């Protein structure tokens, strides 16, 4: 069985452009990629937030109330719901004075089984190292 790993790495702020949003929607589209592949082929996505990208993970976005658009928060929760590994760089979280309490760590209310993981940058680097391709958003 041929499975390829693609690392989606987000280091841009939310809402300035749609960069981080497209990272999320493309990662989630791995759920339907089989229709384009052979029977024994698949893709495993891994999603990592680094640098200013970790600010996408601050919880309680009001983008929908204020501007009528889906928030990055809801995209991240959808990623968890579809069992995509979500990694957040702990050095950057610390640098910005944030803690797990202020971040989107789970999507329990949607019924997601997995949670976001705060990990050292080296862990994210290792994911890039073992990925077949890196999409750097």
């Amino acid at each position: 069985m041929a499975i390829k790993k693609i690392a989606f790495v987000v280091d841009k702020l939310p809402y300035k452009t749609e960069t981080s949003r497209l990272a999320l929607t493309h990662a989630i589209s791995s759920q339907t990629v089989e229709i384009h592949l052979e029977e024994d082929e698949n893709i495993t996505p891994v999603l990592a937030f680094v640098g200013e990208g970790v600010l996408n993970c601050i919880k309680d976005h009001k983008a929908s109330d204020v501007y009528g658009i889906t928030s990055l928060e809801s995209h991240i929760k959808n990623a968890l719901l579809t069992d995509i590994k979500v990694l957040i760089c702990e050095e950057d979280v610390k640098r910005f004075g944030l803690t797990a309490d202020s971040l989107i760590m789970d999507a329990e209310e949607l019924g997601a089984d997995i949670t976001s993981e705060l990990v050292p940058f080296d862990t994210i680097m290792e994911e890039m190292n073992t990925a077949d391709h890196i999409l750097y958003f």
Partner: protein
Amino acid sequence: MKLGVFVSQYSRENDTLSRLKAEKLGVILVQNGVYNAALKEDGKSSPILDKGTTVYALSEDLQTRGLSVDSVDSKVKVVDYDGLVDLIFNEYEKIIWL
């Protein structure tokens, strides 16, 4: 001149801002500029808040990004779109957007 400067990006170093001279200078944080109002990178608030000018931040853009009004530095005045209009017409004569 009374100059209002919209800062729309999160960048703690702002060369342009630090060079501007005006009789009255105000900074208005919008879009990703609002991170300057709330984040303490490496434990320190944004240098933009220490220029001795009045600093405003747009409440709608704070909320969009999950930044509560409570988390905003005490030096910053939070305004909404209505408040922006008044700043533009009543407090400043010229406006630039960085």
